[in-house]
């Protein structure tokens, strides 16, 4: 699953930084019929976790109400240089992940 993570590459210690992720996913609601009238099974990214140097800083549980190709944004406080890692899984059991490196000065 393709995703784009957007964070500042560098930050000062203590700075509040925005973290954004966009994931390519149909977020199939489970309410739509296909062209033959059969129900398309629900398949959404049901959970997503973000860790900063191994510590969980954000978690989302999503459902049918979230649009396709979801985008999430939140904030964290820059502490140490390291990796921001996203992991998620959808109803079909497919897992995805993406990471970005942050350099913290001061």
């Amino acid at each position, binding site marked *: 699953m*393709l995703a*784009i993570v*957007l964070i500042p590459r560098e930050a000062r210690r203590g700075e509040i930084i925005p973290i954004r992720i*966009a994931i*390519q996913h*149909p*977020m199939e609601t489970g309410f739509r019929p296909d062209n033959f009238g059969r129900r398309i099974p629900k398949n959404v990214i049901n959970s997503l976790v973000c860790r900063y140097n191994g510590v969980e800083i954000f978690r989302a549980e999503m459902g049918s109400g979230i649009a396709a190709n979801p*985008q999430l944004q939140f904030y964290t406080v820059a502490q140490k240089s390291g990796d921001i890692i996203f992991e998620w899984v959808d109803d079909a059991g497919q897992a995805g992940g993406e990471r970005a490196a942050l350099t913290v000065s001061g």
Partner: protein
Amino acid sequence: MQSDDFSNPGMLWVARGEKLWMTPAGGSGKSCATCHTEASQGMKGVATRYPAMDPGSARLVNIEGRINLCRARHQQVEAFQYESEELLALTAYVAHQSRGMPVKIEIDAQNRRHFDRGRDLYNRRIGQMNLSCAQCHDQNWGKKLLTDTISQGHGNAYPIYRLEWQNAGSLHRRFRNCLYGVRAELLPAGSAEFLDLELFLAWRARGLPLETPGVRR
């Protein structure tokens, strides 16, 4: 939403296109990048002159068609299906390299026949509603059709991400939407008629900057 690259969901297709650009395909083991190297150089400005005549087959091809020709001739693999995720992604990636550059189509002896047919189709009343493209997009742009504001009907932002589709889509998918709207026969994406229409629209959009990937409601 369109001008902020992160908020523009179409950029996910551009990113996927970039990956496909570098992925080898077929027995030759060649990727697009093997022959064309950096897309940011080799593909810059290419989309401003499409659809164009393919000298090899004397056929009119758009970017989608050109990509599939490269797959057949140079990679010896089967064509991507029109409107497939892969073809949309590669088309968006190639066209994106010309973002901001003006559409530059010239009509000459080679493509004149296609141009004339495209213009005819654009001006012909069709469907149960008996409306031509021109009646909406030349004579009534700026006015409302239900909740839509009718635009001048340019194709310079395609492939686009459309919120209603919750997906990316090609210019030909948009054509099908408009045909459906006037209850006319739905031509298949990639058909000769649509290519002629695409050429006429590109000529009509001369000078407008490419916007791929556009975002629409």
